[in-house]
């Protein structure tokens, strides 16, 4: 069994930034474990631009963004293993992994940072009836086929889900000669960035069908077509509105789910609203010394926020290893109330706060002329006015820690008021 100060599970943007920050904060023995044949995670297949506006004040492609961190990791001499799958993490911080060079390997660590990212929701999980032919793919899998391996996965495509991955793939497929017939979206608003709606759909005259869903799939061996229908306020299909699209591919972009199989094995408590670990002010889970960051905690829209969150986790792991954290300090809950789907972190220990407390959250509906309120034991201490809030765009509110510490509240709550509405884009 090899011993490390810190083992980072996952060599994508979260894992890389966390490892780098831990090293910069004094941690010596760090090991990053990555299951793919190179570092960079999902960014390597995200060949489009839009990454790094906050962190680097530049607009980079996914691989360019990844390369910055890969270079820095290398410059700092941080050890990593690729083509290596972690198959177990225990609640006493031992890790079992396997690769074809070393075989089965075990590690013990003073601290662990979980950065496993997320997976895609599937057709079975949303229960679209019909046949089960070839030609049904999640957008991320299609993206891998197309961008990494150079395979085309269809010629006439219907996309379900207007999240960013679906929008990006609509453009990508069109540029590679496929015909994208429509993007159907269950909700009355798109969860993707407006920029992507314009640059991926409007630019190519691809119709966006809001309040629509796929109700049936036809085709014996390969998709032959899908039925698309409008849905009502309860998101149930309206039978009379069904239309049939002849196509050979259905691409699904219907949600991302943090991948916490290993977390569960370790005994880490998950938040049912995020499907990720419950974390505190330093991104630590319920197990002392196990931290988490990035999409494994909650699904992010911007990799820049992933990097910031990962840096916090990396610095925290460093402080923990250097025994600078008061683990015994009592924690208070951070509770999402009206209009808020979830808040990260879900708990904070007042003694460990310094600088600013960043609360990351998503609203559960589209709001115009909104006001976000932070309350300590029912007393409003901060309000943020926003012209526009949407579930598809993660928000951040920063509060001075000193102020909170002085108040010694029993709980912090977050809620939003405003006009619930939606654009029909």
């Amino acid at each position: 069994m090899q011993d490390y100060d810190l083992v980072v599970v996952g060599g994508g943007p979260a894992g890389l930034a966390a490892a780098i920050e831990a090293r910069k904060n004094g941690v010596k023995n760090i090991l990053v474990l990555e299951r793919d044949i190179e570092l960079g995670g999902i960014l390597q297949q995200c060949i489009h631009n839009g990454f790094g506006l906050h962190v680097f004040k530049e607009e980079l492609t996914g691989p360019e963004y990844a390369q910055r961190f890969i270079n820095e990791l290398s410059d700092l001499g941080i050890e990593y293993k690729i083509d290596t799958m972690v198959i177990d993490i225990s609640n006493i911080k031992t890790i079992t992994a396997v690769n074809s060079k070393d075989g089965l390997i075990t590690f013990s660590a003073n601290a662990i940072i979980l950065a496993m990212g997320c997976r895609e929701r599937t057709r079975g999980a949303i229960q679209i009836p019909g046949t089960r032919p070839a030609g049904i793919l999640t957008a991320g899998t299609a993206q891998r086929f197309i961008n990494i391996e150079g395979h085309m996965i269809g010629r006439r495509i219907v996309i379900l889900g207007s999240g960013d991955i679906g929008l990006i793939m609509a453009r990508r497929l069109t540029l590679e000669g496929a015909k994208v017939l429509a993007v159907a979206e269950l909700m009355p608003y798109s969860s993707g960035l407006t920029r992507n709606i314009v640059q991926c759909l409007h630019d190519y005259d691809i119709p966006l069908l809001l309040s629509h869903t796929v109700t049936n799939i036809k085709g014996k061996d390969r998709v032959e077509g899908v039925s698309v229908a409008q849905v009502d306020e309860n998101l149930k299909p309206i039978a009379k509105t069904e239309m049939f699209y002849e196509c050979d591919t259905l691409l699904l972009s219907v949600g991302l789910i943090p991948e916490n199989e290993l977390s569960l094995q370790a005994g880490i408590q998950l938040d049912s609203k995020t499907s990720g670990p419950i974390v505190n002010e330093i991104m630590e889970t319920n197990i002392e010394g196990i931290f988490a960051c990035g999409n494994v905690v909650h699904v992010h829209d911007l990799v820049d926020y992933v990097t910031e969150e990962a840096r916090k986790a990396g610095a925290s792991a460093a402080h923990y290893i250097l025994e600078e954290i008061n683990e015994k300090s009592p924690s208070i809950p951070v509770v999402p109330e009206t209009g808020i789907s979830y808040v990260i972190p879900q708990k904070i220990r007042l003694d460990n706060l310094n600088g600013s407390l960043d609360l990351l959250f998503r609203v559960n509906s589209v709001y115009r002329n909104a006001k976000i309120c932070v309350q300590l034991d029912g007393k409003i201490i901060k309000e943020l006015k926003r012209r526009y809030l949407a579930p598809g765009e993660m928000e951040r509110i920063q509060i001075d820690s000193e102020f909170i510490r002085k108040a010694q509240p029993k709980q912090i709550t977050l809620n939003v008021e405003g006009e619930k509405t939606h654009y029909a884009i």
Partner: protein
Amino acid sequence: MFDVLIIGAGICGTYIARELSRFKLRVALIDKANDVSNGTTKANSAIIHAGYDPEPGTLMAKLNARGNPMFDPICHDLDVPFQRIGSFVLAFNQDDLKIIRNLYNRGIQNSIRNMDLIDKNQLHYLEPSIHPNAVGALYAKTAGIIGPWELAIALAENAMDNGVKLFLNNTVQAIHKEDSVFTVKTQNSTFHSKIVINCAGVHAARINNLIAPAAFKINQRRGEYYVLDKTASDLIHHVIFQPPGSYGKGVLITPTVHGNVLVGPNSDFVTDDDALQTTDGGLDFVREMSKKSYQNIPFNKTINIFAGLRAEPDTGDFIIGESPDVKGFLNVAGIKSPGLSASPAIAEMVVEIVDRITSGLKPNPAFKATRKKVYHFSEMTDMEKSNLIDRDPRYARIVCRCENITEGEIVDAIHRNAGATTVDGVKRRVRPGTGRCQGGFCMPRVIEILARELKQDMSTILKDGPNSQIITGTTKTVDTIKHEETVVA
């Protein structure tokens, strides 16, 4: 020239082939699909019934009772997952109690042992989360769950190891008989055989009618199912049936041998050939009906939905025997539930008939009852894993992250007899694609491995059926084309 030609490589065809391979016979097993067990055998409840349900005196009753205890040795020999977890038929009121008492008595008539009628307290002790309205149950300890296609595949492999020849992609189009020899024509080949055994599932009547007068009809009844994620496995620990009654046969809930939960099926008469789609109506029916047994089935943990077809005989019983009109032509038809449970006994019965027809089978001294060891990486200890990796480093590369399946297992599944040639074929043998992500992560890698091992281009690799290529071409086609208008109907 063959001694026996078996049409249909489902659970019956493969079992019969394997049992015949114990003897010195030239046996051919053919199937229209590109893999074995591609029909009903791959889409059913995967239950080994205790045997109280079939009408006493029927072949179904006799063969279910005989077949049930035969699963332990076959699954042990062929390393197929099988668990005798027991079943409950629930009762919710006095009428239901009468029904389950009748079933119990029927079971006695069918010589079924280890059954009990249990009350509410005992039931809730054994299944704490069962619906509080359940007042009692028929408890059958000999019921179990199995991997049905795993068994069929293992039987096919073992049969081939012992000399049986497998011919896939052969759809029977004509059968003639001349001078005690059958000529069976498919779209690809012509086979000659002294005996023909019809195990063609939902197509059995069509096959019979190619050579013999129409003696029976097979109706297709479709059943739809939900598959729940392994995190739902705490839900139940036995097979849970609902009492057959005025509202039909009811819907069952069962664990699977892999730790998932199955909920279903409904029963719809369908006429289209291979009408395998799931439907809104069917799925809604399953959801509604299942609530009687369980209050809060976590359907939000659904990872897959599927449909299977039952071959329902219009005679009401299995049709197993030599055709009265054509000597040497055996029907094994109408094998609906409890067909899977009866399959070892069906094979035994068919072997007896073949023995009689050929006036004596001679044993094959080289017959091996077991197959080459299958390594299940995720179930091995750390020491076993390390030893295996030392022997073959392909067992160190995990391809399916959800189920922890290694490249070594996938390569092995491709190269065995009756090996995988498609993505779903790999899935049925070693499980990548059956987990939470349903192939999202592993599918590109599985395609790569198939292409490499079969020495084919990746664009030719199929998902399942003959035209189910996943990759349609490459990117960088020169000059992106202008398209015609969208066709929307």
